[in-house]
């Protein structure tokens, strides 16, 4: 328990340092990057809640981010803009407007509710079947967002969403997400779920209700994704369904896998690493484009490098950087060892 608290303190310190750094530097680009990072952090932690504890790869996560973003957007676009932004909206919803902060919560709850409804039967599946159904779920969610013009304005960009997310709000939610993910991991449900991850049949035999445990984690993870989506919507203020598809799925999966899916520490470290290297690469890409060294635009460099990094890390460390233990546990062990006067030996579990 002490080690868990230590992990929490260290991980929250990361976020606080980030916010303080961005505020002190007073560069708008940095504040923007820090806000984006906080939102990604919530998303990746949400994915970690399900994937890390159940061991099942899920592609559908970004779809729930979209559900949250659209749910909040539909309820918060100012009434005078509503007619322009969403001409075909159902009359019953046309007169309804809530504050963006309420909208963010509703966004999260809507995503969780959708997840709760559609996912219960899917949680019975394991391995490749589970992966393919989650992929199918992403395609279904994307198609619905693309075609349900009344709510989402179809494939066109939805605009006019009030700006409400600032760095403090995003970082605050990110800290809550860290605490939530850690508490879930150490809770009874989390512990049982991790038991089913390590041995599905064994855990089932001692009475763990595998699909129900997975379902709980999935709903919680969709809640995180929905809140992150709504926050992002109120940050970026206009978006289209394209923002919630394979490219984004790849980026957040990359963050989680490079850091290490089984631990909250891995999710946090992975997000920081990937966001910072992404921004650096993007700067390189922009300066290459500005310098006109190549005839065409340089696009896709960041993704190429991220893909190579993912493959390299998975070959060298299949579990990611923090594959089994939270950072607090690691430090706690080391401290204990040095108290006993032993050298911390490598390779010991």
């Amino acid at each position, binding site marked *: 328990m002490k080690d868990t608290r230590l992990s929490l303190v260290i991980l929250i310190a990361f976020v606080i340092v980030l916010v303080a750094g961005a505020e002190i530097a007073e560069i708008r680009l940095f504040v923007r990057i820090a806000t984006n990072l906080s939102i990604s952090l919530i998303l990746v932690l949400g994915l970690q809640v399900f994937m890390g504890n159940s061991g099942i*790869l899920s592609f559908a996560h970004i779809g729930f981010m979209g559900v949250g973003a659209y749910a909040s957007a539909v309820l918060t676009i100012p009434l005078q803009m509503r007619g322009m932004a969403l001409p075909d909206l159902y009359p019953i919803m046309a007169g309804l407007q809530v504050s963006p902060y309420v909208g963010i919560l509703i966004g999260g709850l809507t995503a969780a509710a959708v997840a709760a409804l559609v996912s219960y039967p*899917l949680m019975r599946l394991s391995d*490749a079947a589970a992966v393919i159904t989650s992929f199918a779920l992403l395609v*279904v969610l994307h198609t619905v967002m693309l075609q349900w013009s009344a709510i989402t304005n179809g494939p066109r960009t939805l605009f006019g969403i009030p700006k409400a997310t600032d760095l403090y709000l995003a970082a605050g939610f990110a800290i809550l997400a860290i605490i939530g993910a850690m508490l879930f991991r150490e809770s009874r449900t989390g512990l049982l779920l991790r038991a089913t991850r390590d041995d599905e049949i064994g855990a089932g035999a001692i009475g763990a209700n595998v699909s129900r445990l997975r379902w709980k984690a999935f709903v919680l993870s969709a809640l995180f994704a929905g809140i992150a989506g709504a926050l992002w919507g109120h940050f970026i203020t206009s978006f289209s369904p394209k923002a919630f598809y394979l490219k984004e799925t790849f980026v957040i*999966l990359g963050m989680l*896998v490079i850091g290490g899916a089984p631990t909250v520490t891995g999710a946090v470290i992975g997000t920081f690493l990937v966001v910072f290297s992404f921004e650096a690469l993007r700067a390189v890409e922009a300066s290459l484009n500005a310098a006109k060294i190549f005839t065409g635009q340089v*696009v*896709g460099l960041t993704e190429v490098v*991220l893909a190579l990094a993912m493959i390299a890390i998975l070959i060298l460390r299949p579990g990611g950087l923090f594959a089994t233990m939270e950072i607090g546990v690691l430090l706690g062990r080391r401290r204990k060892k040095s108290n006993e006067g032993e050298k911390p030996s490598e390779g010991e579990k």
Partner: protein
Amino acid sequence: MAVYLQFIIDVLSLGGAYALMALGLVIVYGILRLVNFAYGELIMVSGYTMFLLGDSALPWIVMAAAGVFMAIVGGIVTDYVAFRPVRTKSVTAVLITSFAFSTLLQNAALLFISPRPRNVPLPDIFSETVRFAGVVTPARNLITIAAAVILLAVFAWMMKRTVLGVAMRAAATHFTMARMLGVSANLIISTAFAISGLFAGIVSLFWIGRIGSVVPGIGLEPLLIAFIATVIGGMRSLQGAVLGGFLLAFIDTGLNYSLPQDLLKFLDAFTFSLVILILLWRPAGLMKGPASGQRT
């Protein structure tokens, strides 16, 4: 009568292409029980090879052969880069490395070639139409049907009669036992990837032949189709993949002929919901494959 004939030709030509796509995916899945997310990119590789050769004076058939060859090479490279190093360590890791490899190839095409569509050389016969028994149909459709029939027959013969085919079926049934009896694991898996690349390359000729150009994202749709077809037919059965391909083509063409325009937009959502339902009802698909063994 002519309408029915038209419908049958449409189903068979689409189904032939779908069945080949599904087979390419399932031959790897059957042995490794791992999904190759980079499968669609093999079609892209073949397309870009043909685009790069497009300005040369080579006859089309040579360019097509080069495209198919590069797809085979691409399949084997997938094995070496994304599968072999992590195969024994973690299932999730392999799924993600193959997803990463797919993104890598796509963005490499974006970076080094262009995000815009590029024209691919086509033979004249692809744009001709054939008229018989009151039906007008592109000659391409009939060629697709013929190619699918020939390839499926050769493939079935190879799996049944040759040593390699028998070894591959053995590996799909019980991998560990097959290895103990002297089947080389790496050889079998690389062969499976090569065959997967061969199917992808041949499908790309017809797939790209319908559009006439290639873009970096071209692999997504064939990958999704192969997914649905294999899931419907049975993830571990080769016959199931072929059945699933034709069944999917039947459903797609049928809905295309019968659904009103404003529901047609949701076609993808319908078919993927169907996939989810089928997996819930029969997690192993319509046709069961061999009993599962250990994967190493």
